């Protein structure tokens, strides 16, 4: 199994480190050719406008869409979730449209509204997951009647914060928080399992 982390901008090194703590080597992806034969790609936290711009400048858009069609799984964290979503409530950036959700950027306000909160995450066991939300995006719309979509975790007010969509030959996972900034490796493990 070959995993990569998109290393255009953001906290990609933290993802690489989390996977290495699970004993898994990952590639830092800076050129579209490096996507070939990847089984899974993580799009990290960062600035979604910057990451999307670099995706387009360096020809990643078509390359990612092509690899996904061939079965590559994706996990987007925070900015990465914005990048893979179907629709944004903002006029830009232009997302990749890989998971059927609508996302609002910076919904919680400026940095002083960034927060930490414990999240119940059933698939990962009874222990709560440490949720770190940094100028976090908000999943403003998701069609839960769609059988291919599953909400994996919610805040206490019902806001979905982790979603998976199963397509014919690949899966897309999104989290609006940052497991890579914690020492809890369970979401990384989950991504590895769903990719195997």
């Amino acid at each position, binding site marked *: 199994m070959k995993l990569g982390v998109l*290393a*255009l*901008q*953001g*906290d*990609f*090194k*933290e993802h690489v*480190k*989390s996977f290495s*703590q699970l004993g898994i080597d990952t590639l830092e992806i*800076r050129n579209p050719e490096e996507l070939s034969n990847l089984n899974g790609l993580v799009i990290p*936290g*960062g*600035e979604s*406008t*910057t990451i999307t*711009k*670099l995706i387009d*400048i360096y020809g990643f858009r078509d390359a990612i869409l092509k690899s996904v069609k061939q079965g590559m799984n994706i996990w987007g964290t*925070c*900015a990465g979730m914005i990048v893979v979503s179907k629709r944004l409530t*903002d006029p*830009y950036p232009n997302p990749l449209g890989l998971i059927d959700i609508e996302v609002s*950027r*910076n919904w919680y*306000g*400026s*940095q*002083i*509204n*960034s*927060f*930490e*909160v*414990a999240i119940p995450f059933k698939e990962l066991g009874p*222990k*709560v997951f*440490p949720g*770190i*939300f*940094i*100028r976090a995006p908000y999943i403003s719309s998701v069609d839960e009647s769609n059988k291919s979509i599953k909400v994996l975790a919610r805040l*206490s007010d019902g806001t979905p914060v982790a979603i998976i969509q199963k397509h014919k030959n690949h899966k897309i996972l999104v989290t609006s928080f*940052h497991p*890579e*900034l*914690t*020492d809890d490796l369970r979401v990384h493990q989950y991504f590895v399992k769903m990719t195997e």
Partner: protein
Amino acid sequence: MSTINSTNKNGNTSSNKEWKQLEKPKTGSWTVKGGLAQMLKGGVIMDVVTSEHAKIAEDAGAVAVMALERVPADIRADGGVARMSDPELISGIINSVSIPVMAKCRIGHFVEAQILESLGVDYADESEVLTEADTKHHINKWNFKMPFVCGARNLGEALRRIGEGAAMIRTKGEAGTGDVVQAVSHARSVLGHIQKITIMSEEELMTEAKNIGAPYELLIEIKRSGKLPVVNFAAGGIATPADAALMMQLGVDGVFVGSGIFKSGNPAKRAEAIVKATTHYNDPSILAEVSKGLGEAMVGINVSTIPEDSRLEIRGS
């Protein structure tokens, strides 16, 4: 926690027990303050003086903008007292872009910082580029929910700022010159010193803490982790894509570009080129490509011609 240092100001480390108690959202914590800096890594933060500049910076791929009234080159040329920018200007810039907005306050001027926090600024820069308000004390940054970035020339200075609550560090460089020499010197000093700490024996750390005027606990942590406990950017004198890539190869996490962009011939093109260079800092063929035809770089001032006591980097220590 592994990647963001979660030691609070009392030196305690958060445990899973605390997570269980964290059913209500907690804002302004050390984790979320440092977390935003983590998101800026591998990116370029650009000085802007108008909403139009801010838009150009965002379109060029900046990860954040620094709102200020005059770029450092003009502050240097104009002289006089340099202060926090007009809140109207800062709010205008906040409203014009979707990326994080930073703003500068004077060293030790905690009321300017309070104003910035109330405006909803995402990060405050307690900056030597502005005139000092207090020659002996920096702001107690633990008092704020808004995170701070501070400049440092060496490891002792960086750790004192972190001890005061700074959640991000940058080199001081020599702002407004377009001469990268001081940024290089400061980055080498901080990063080289970290290497030395990692091979020191436990017994040496207290003496080292005394010698460099740094909190002992932070030296213990550096010995353990081998890195600064917060994100570390380069700033001051970066004017070209090659300058940005140089700083990245030296080992910083990202770059601030001040006067270098909007004092150059073609700001939009240069801004985008520096963004590309910061991503592909290890790829000389891409660096060559993005460095082509950028027009005039800022004219620049050779730092060695500025008398030592007139340099901005000596403010605050």
